[in-house]
């Protein structure tokens, strides 16, 4: 094989590679256009799974004496669902969304204020000797 042949082959390969790269870029652009704007499910799901593990280790370290306040405070923080209720109420969605969103805001507000307040009341009672 002469050096000239090699050079010709290399040039050919380089050309093929550039065509492939162009194709890939085109495919990527199409995918990017069609992809949903929200974060892909797999990312959210990874966060979810990791959070379950964090929850597992954090909750095992809670002293049994404080299991009642734990329940009250987890109830209060799960009311962060108010974020969804607020978006439903406050954005230009539909009347149904406004109404259901509003009722959801009222319900979880009971929980947020009630949950943190009752937790606080309980914790204030735990005293040292």
């Amino acid at each position, binding site marked *: 094989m002469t050096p000239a042949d090699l050079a010709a082959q290399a040039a050919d390969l380089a050309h093929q590679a550039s065509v492939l790269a162009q194709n890939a870029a085109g495919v990527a652009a199409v995918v990017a256009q069609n992809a949903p704007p929200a974060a892909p499910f797999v990312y959210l799901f990874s966060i979810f799974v990791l959070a379950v593990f964090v*929850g597992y280790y954090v909750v095992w370290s809670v002293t049994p004496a404080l299991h009642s306040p*734990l*329940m*009250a405070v987890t109830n209060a923080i799960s009311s962060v*669902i108010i974020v969804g209720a607020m978006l439903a109420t406050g*954005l230009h969605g539909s009347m149904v969304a406004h109404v259901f969103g509003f009722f959801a805001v009222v319900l*979880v507000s009971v*929980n947020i204020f*009630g949950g943190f307040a009752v937790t606080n009341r309980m914790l204030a009672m735990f005293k040292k000797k």
Partner: protein
Amino acid sequence: MNQSLTSFAYLVAAVLFILALRGLSHPTTSRQGNRFGMAGMVIAILATFLHGGMDWGWALVIVLGVAIGGSIGLVVAQKIKMTALPQLVAAFHSLVGLAAVFVATSALNAPQSFGIGTPHHIHTESLIEMSIGLAIGAVTFSGSLIAFAKLQALMKGTPITFRGQHQLNAGIGIAILLLVIAFVASGGSMVLFALIAVLAFALGFLLIIPIGGADMPVVVSMLNSYSGWAASGIGFTIGNLALIVTGALVGSSGAILSYIMCKGMNRSIINVIAGGFGNSGDGAAAAATSSEGKAVKHGSADDAAFIMKNASKVIVVPGYGMAVSQAQHALRELGDLLKEDGVEVKYAIHPVAGRMPGHMNVLLAEASVPYDDVFELEQINNEFATADVVYVIGANDVTNPAAKTNPQSPIFGMPILDVDKAKTVLFVKRGMSSGYAGVDNELFFRDNTMMLFGDAKKMTEEIVQALGR
């Protein structure tokens, strides 16, 4: 506000929620933890107000909603009696469940608000997440309502069972699953959505009615877990990080508490959920037959006072009966008087004492019993052998030696407080009825046991008076 800044705010909120739970690892750090939780909530709410496209007129409506709900919550939290804590928590869980149903409904009607598509053209993924959030939310709502009704005694605590119950529940579960598939395939049919909600409400109701009163610690923990999973489901629907993380935290927290409660009774979660335990009612008949020919020694408040005064170590074992008769304050007075006489006083708490995890600890704390005097089962079980007197107030099954000795007993294998090792056992009970599990307690008939018949609070007050003389 910039999209990534909002996301960052939600991340901060999620971290603060983790710190809130972390703070509960010790009473001294717990109040700080609660403040972290509140801060996280404020950040999440403020970030949402600054979300692009928020209509300021409707934002005022949101503020109004928060004011209405918030004031109700604050009043209830201040007024509630600590003995009624389990039903309060059950009621709170139901609200989270219902809110999840409402948010899912809004998301179906105005998907553009959540960036999940346009009406009738919602992303398939979002439809799946939405219907799962809806179903878990609805089960949480109706299940918690039943738990509330049972705890508040609006409904009898005895299990309601009927033939084919489990088949019916399984059938409804499968029907919900099929409806979810049909709902997603239909691209978001409102009718199917409503059907899923109705069936899930029914399922929540049917799941809790067969579970008896004393299994409520498991039920309340389980519903706690469900409310977390529901929040996570909604979090996936609207792609919100704070909701997903918080839902996962709450979900696993509730699951761990359910596990601890089941372990405290040596029963599997399946066994508890299947229900029907403790069917024998108040067990009056059982007591009448098995106590034949056996004599119990019973004494008066004066006798009890005399025995306690001459003891050097007294361990108090409180149970649900103490909560029912609100005896915690009288109990603390008793402890104070004994301590003045130089008697060592400790409190031993079984994992499933009361109607929710940690219920007894809160009641004792309410009566200003220092938490250093209160011990869990593993910490104190060796000490019963060195105790002169054990004062069992409103507890029964958790002290029953049959759990160790009698393989036929329904409570066999359940970890118990070894009160039988103490020199003298004082049992405060209203009568000779058996415990929740419907089994006789052989401790009542032992020579070193003295029964004190009467109301827990009244008896404790009488002992306090006798000690004062």
